[in-house]
């Protein structure tokens, strides 16, 4: 059980912190041009952070950190269809259908 004081500290702290993260560049940097090396790195933000976030969730998807094969297959289906069709919804559909079918069949 989470106690109320902790919860509200987290909500407020996380709210303020998240806003500052979001506002830093947009608010404080304004229209000053950013250096090319920084922009070059920023181009790869999403394709680096999101896979880094997802990889452990896929590989250690079973109970107590084991690998759940149904979830790995669903992840690969999502990735494969997404790269092939370049369509977010085709990818989500492929992943969700694969997962649900495997979970109920196996």
């Amino acid at each position: 059980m989470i106690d109320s004081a902790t919860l509200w500290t987290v909500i407020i702290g996380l709210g303020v912190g998240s806003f500052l993260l979001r506002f830093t560049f947009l608010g404080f940097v304004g229209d000053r041009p950013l250096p090319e090396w920084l922009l070059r790195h920023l181009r790869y933000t999403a394709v680096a952070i999101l896979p880094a976030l997802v990889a452990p969730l896929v590989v250690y998807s079973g109970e107590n950190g084991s690998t759940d094969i149904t979830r790995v297959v669903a992840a690969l289906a999502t990735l494969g269809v997404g790269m092939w069709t370049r369509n977010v919804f085709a990818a989500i559909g492929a992943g969700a259908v694969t997962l649900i079918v495997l979970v109920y069949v196996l």
Partner: protein
Amino acid sequence: MPITTTKSAFWAGVRDGAPFIFVAGPFALLFGVLATEAGLNVFEVMTFSLVVIAGAAQFTALQVMENDAPTVIVILSALAVNLRVAMYSAALTPYLGRAPLWQRVFAAYLLVDQSYALSHAKFDAEPELSVPQRMAYYFGSCLLVMIVWFGMSYLGAAVGTQLPQDLPLDFALPIAFLSMVAPMVRTLPHLVAAVVAVIVGLLAVPVPYSLGLIIAGAAGMMAGAQAEVMLKGRGA
């Protein structure tokens, strides 16, 4: 249809953002359900979603709180997961940095994966858009996603534990993230960045306080940027 006015830019944003309700909706629903199961009431769930608006960070906070971690670690872990929004903020600054401050305050509050991904792609593809048109597109792209975000958080909190227990909702988050990232892998440097991030991300799992994610993300970004420089050098 080409964007000619601020109004048409707003509605183009609304249209392009519409499909993402199917991404934000399940996340918000899932958060509402999991948070209720962790003992939060509807008011707490709604405030959490309204103040933070960051699915992955909210899930992280919930997870770490349930492990009885110190409060400061809970906040730092969730912020680490959310650090990518600082990078999104930097990536959008060349396009939106000249807008009035109050607009940038609201834009910052609404900055999430979807609004970043859509707007950055749009501004990159159509450099002739004016700053007010870009802002209008940006806010348009947020509209439906935010309505659905708050609505589904509420629904999740309200239905709480009444959902069938064997529904594999836990994996909604990885599937949504993968489906977002797969179409973005357009070039070899993108692929290099993703592969390096995955490998480092898996190796860095034991690193405490979710710092592994930051390390892996930084490694992936550096790898992608380096690959881009090397490919350009070969082409010249």
